[in-house]
């Protein structure tokens, strides 16, 4: 009978322990639930601020993410003027490839299908960029391969690039990269080199051998599709204009008018007009002309110091000021290129939003404008 009594005590003791344990667990759960978790984040006040004059931010642009990041193929893309070379080309992106933002030296930049490490890009260099032999052997060096003889280079196959027959190279080796610091075994390079005295074009795909081999046909198709994206260069029929230029894709010629060397409608409809005027001498001076334009939009004149702050581009081989004017009745973008013998003005007018949408095209057009030989 003495055996029963301890059993009862043990049971009670065990029950107490269980209650205590569950209580502790419950308390932990409650405490942990109340405590802030690290994922909740932290909060700070922004301490530093400053006022900046002459901001270039276009607060009204409402650009999409793709446009902001320079991803092409988006509607109404507004690539920066400095990326003008990229706009000179068009191509068909192979299925499964991902187009990346253009990078330094790369006018087109892709991630081929199959492997994250593979890459393909197009480079354009001035002149012959050192020649075919030097470039081929530089690429071979990146794959830890020895140089090729002139005869071997001569025997290399050809493939279409930019409408011409370019030299095709296909090698495998140990990838050292451009700096020679990388070490990747079983790597491959497939490339096309089109070298001309006036300029050279390179298309290069690198990555694991299996991926590069699998994407070979896509690479060749891409290279064959790669061509000029610009409209043909038009030499004005008007003897008065005397210009060579590239017409932006969304522009079309407007009827010639007296005192205008060239006239265009920019974008859909005829709401935005752009024209080129040539005047002898300095035509009253740059500041006077800019203030005359401002007056047309009901704005007060600016001082020479304000004019000096404006951005510049090259127009007809000379520096030219870019003048952005937003008035209540519309907007105007002008480019003024002053010279003691003859001054050139480009002027675009129309509703503010439409004019701003054509700004990039205007600057590309201005950069292409040359006085005919």
């Amino acid at each position, binding site marked *: 009978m003495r055996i029963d009594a301890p059993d009862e005590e043990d049971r009670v003791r065990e029950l107490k322990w269980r209650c205590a344990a569950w209580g502790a667990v419950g308390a932990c759960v409650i405490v942990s639930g109340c405590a802030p978790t690290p994922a909740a984040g*932290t909060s700070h006040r922004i301490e530093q*601020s400053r006022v900046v004059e002459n*901001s270039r931010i276009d607060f009204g642009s409402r650009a999409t993410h793709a446009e902001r990041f320079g*991803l092409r193929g988006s509607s109404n893309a507004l690539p920066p003027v400095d990326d003008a070379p990229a706009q000179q080309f068009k191509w068909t992106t192979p299925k499964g490839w991902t187009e990346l933002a253009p990078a330094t030296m790369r006018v087109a930049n892709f991630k081929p299908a199959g492997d994250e490490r593979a890459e393909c890009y197009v480079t354009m260099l*001035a002149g012959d960029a050192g020649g075919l032999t030097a470039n081929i052997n530089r690429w071979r060096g990146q794959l830890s391969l020895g140089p090729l003889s002139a005869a071997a280079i001569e025997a290399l196959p050809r493939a279409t690039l930019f409408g011409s027959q370019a030299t095709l190279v296909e090698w495998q080796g140990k990838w050292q990269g451009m700096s020679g*610091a990388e070490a990747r075994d079983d790597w491959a390079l497939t490339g096309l080199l089109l070298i001309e005295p006036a300029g050279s074009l390179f298309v290069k795909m690198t990555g694991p051998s299996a991926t590069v081999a699998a994407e070979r046909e896509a690479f060749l198709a891409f290279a064959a599709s790669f061509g000029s994206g610009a409209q043909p260069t038009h030499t004005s029929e008007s003897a008065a204009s005397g210009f060579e230029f590239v017409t932006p894709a969304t522009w079309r010629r407007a009827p010639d008018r007296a005192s205008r060397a060239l006239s265009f409608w920019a974008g859909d409809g005829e709401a935005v007009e752009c024209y080129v005027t040539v005047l002898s001498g300095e035509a009253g001076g740059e500041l006077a002309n800019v203030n005359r334009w401002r007056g047309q939009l009901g704005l007060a004149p600016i001082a020479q110091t304000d004019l000096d702050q404006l951005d510049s581009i090259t127009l007809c081989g000379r520096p030219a000021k870019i003048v952005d004017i937003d008035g209540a009745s519309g907007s105007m973008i002008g480019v003024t290129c002053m010279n003691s013998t003859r001054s050139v003005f480009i002027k675009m007018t129309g509703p503010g939003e439409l004019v701003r949408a054509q700004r990039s095209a205007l600057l590309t057009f201005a950069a292409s404008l040359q006085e005919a030989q």
Partner: protein
Amino acid sequence: MVRKIARGVLTVASSLATCCVLLVLLGLLTWLGTLEQTRTGLFEVQRKYFESFILFHDFGRFSIPLPGANLVMCLLAVNLAVGGFVRIRKSWATAGVIVTHVGIAMLLMSALVKHNWSSDGHVTLYEGQSADHFESYFRWELAVIEQLDGGRVREHLVPHERIEEAQRIPVSLNAADIPFTVQIESVSKNCRPERAQSTSAHGPVVIDGVKLVPREVDARAEANIAGACVSIFDEQTGTRRRALLWGAEAQPFTFVAAGKAWAVSLRKERYAMPFAIQLARFNKTEHPGTNMPRSFESEVQVASGSSSRDVKISMNEPLRDGGLVLYQASWGPSNARPGDRLFSTFAVVRNPADQWPLAACLVIAAGLLFHFVRKLTRYVKLEMRAA
């Protein structure tokens, strides 16, 4: 016993042998760091070899611990202070040596000031463009920008440290004069934008058909382009906007809140300059028959207040003004054709101790000159006496 130990420590700390060992270590670190730089970037080498107290250098399969240049220079400063100033015998015979030690101490001080209180970056200008600020090479900032009148904006700036913090946990930011809260949800140190259809469970956030895909962080810190996903919560209207920000974006994210136009941008930290610089013309000449530049220089106009002056900045002739030094660093585009518009890049350094090394070298030269001339005259006198 304690005094004996203290004296021993003092003797070692001030000895010439310790000084020699430390100088050899500095030379070794410079050599190893230079070799390492061929494999990794300048930033990483600087951090590992020269800004550290201890490091592990890889010799093949083995990692050997070494004192970092920071520790070596601290010990050198102690050695110099104790041996070169406190314990050295003070007399005309040692005056030149003491002056030389002062010069070396100035060199160490200039390194300390440069390390702790300098900032550096670059400014890139196309011909005709001007700037009154320069940008860091690798420090990022988030700018919340409010449109004011007359082309002015007010920038509310979130420093690099907060961006780094947001790599671990979301960071909420607010200010009294901002009518919304900005939360940095996530940050990627190096990423590129790509088109995408929809957000996957564990993949990057997709907004407006675009995602920022993380990339391997480059050892060359300046080669990384950071990206962030932010949400902007307007408490008054209860609206929440989400946006992706990318360090190389052509335009900031813009929106309207409380009747005002705002923009948010992720960009390299910007530092104001006490003057504005305008690139008037960039000149380069190539080696005959090649595209390799032989020399390049920038003709700039430096404007401060109502005055301005024309200056030429070339590879070995920097511009020094207002505590800043602007060096001609590079130019581009590298594939520019004749007649194309060129840009010029200046490396900008704000270093309060910029001229200290020159002064230190002059002090060292004066000390050594005094010491050796005195030795020479004593020797000549002794020879004349012996004769």
